[in-house]
């Protein structure tokens, strides 16, 4: 098995784990009123841990269909599609005609490299800028997810280009 294919499978593995493992822990705070909020609504200040898949599911259940769709598209479907396309490219003879058209697609996709990580970073940044000192902690699932994205980014560099 070639190097790129091993990298694709490894990226797939990291992606599978990264989607379901704990990614983000949010610790809600209400500034100097935190202790009062804790008394009146104990649940409101308890830390909540989300996986990427769990966050999308919760968004869907809360009727935030647009956000669920965008997050699902860029963090689940897009990375899987990208890795599948890379797998298809490495499955063919490098000089075959269909590889060229697939490579065009992969070149287009490479423009969106790390877009899933960008979404995750935006989510964390949003929580961190909430008033009252709310905290967002990155969990190990996020690192698995980012590793998958970096792996996917390296695949085109390792993949053999068609010889002219």
């Amino acid at each position, binding site marked *: 098995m070639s190097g790129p294919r091993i990298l694709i499978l490894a990226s*797939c593995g990291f992606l599978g784990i990264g989607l379901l493992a704990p990614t983000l*822990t949010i610790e809600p705070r209400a500034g*100097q009123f935190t*202790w009062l909020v804790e008394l009146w609504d104990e649940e409101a200040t308890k830390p909540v*841990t989300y996986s990427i898949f769990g966050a999308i599911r919760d968004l869907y259940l809360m009727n935030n269909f647009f956000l669920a769709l965008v997050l699902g598209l860029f963090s689940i479907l897009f990375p899987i599609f990208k890795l599948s396309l890379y797998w298809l490219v490495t499955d063919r003879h490098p000089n075959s005609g269909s590889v060229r058209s697939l490579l065009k697609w992969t070149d287009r996709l490479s423009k969106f490299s790390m877009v899933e990580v960008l979404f995750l970073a935006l989510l964390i940044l949003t929580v961190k800028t909430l008033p009252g000192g709310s905290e967002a902690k990155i969990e190990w699932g996020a690192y698995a997810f980012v590793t998958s994205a970096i792996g996917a980014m390296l695949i085109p560099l390792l993949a053999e280009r068609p010889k002219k």
Partner: protein
Amino acid sequence: MTDLSDFDAPKRPWLSLLIPILVVFGFGGFYLIINSNNTPDPIGDPTARTGTGGIKQGLVKGQTYYLFASEIELYPTNLENDPWDGGENGPDIRYRILWQGNKVFESEEKDDALIADWSGLSLDLEWGDLMGKTISPDEAIKAARIRYEKGGVVEIVVEDDDLTDDDDAGRAEIELDDLMIGKNEIKLKKTSINAVRRINLRALPHGSALKDLVELMK
């Protein structure tokens, strides 16, 4: 330049697309299986909950405590076994705490309730205060301040607040030696001088760390 045909390509190329998808789902499923025995589940569920249980501890001699009733329940009828407000309305419950013969705290009134509760907290905030007022726990906690001495007692007087005349619902003399830090449940029998079924009394150490007070009030 030779353009190779797709002769050497797999016959069903789209089937190979499934391999990465299966690997993603396989690893995801594997993670779920090995993690199924470990609670809590991270998928959108709250985790890292803090326990509220603690070891009961008696009062310390010479120390000051906050004391308030978090809940008071009355019997369905008053001392004369009549309805509380003469009709269908429930009693308007209020209590006060007497310590060393002095009234040291009086609660707010809770209208039409056989079970009344008080949080022990109350804030009188103006809109402007939200911009920068600093609130100390001492300012916000609405409770009696008492000091524990061996053999000391406090008296809880419960009343049905009426427009014309306040009716006694009952009174309970509580020995401070029996009190524990946190929640203390006191059950009382119906008599000709008592119509209070239950009092939940909370004792909180004065000057404790904010976090400890919050835990004790839960």
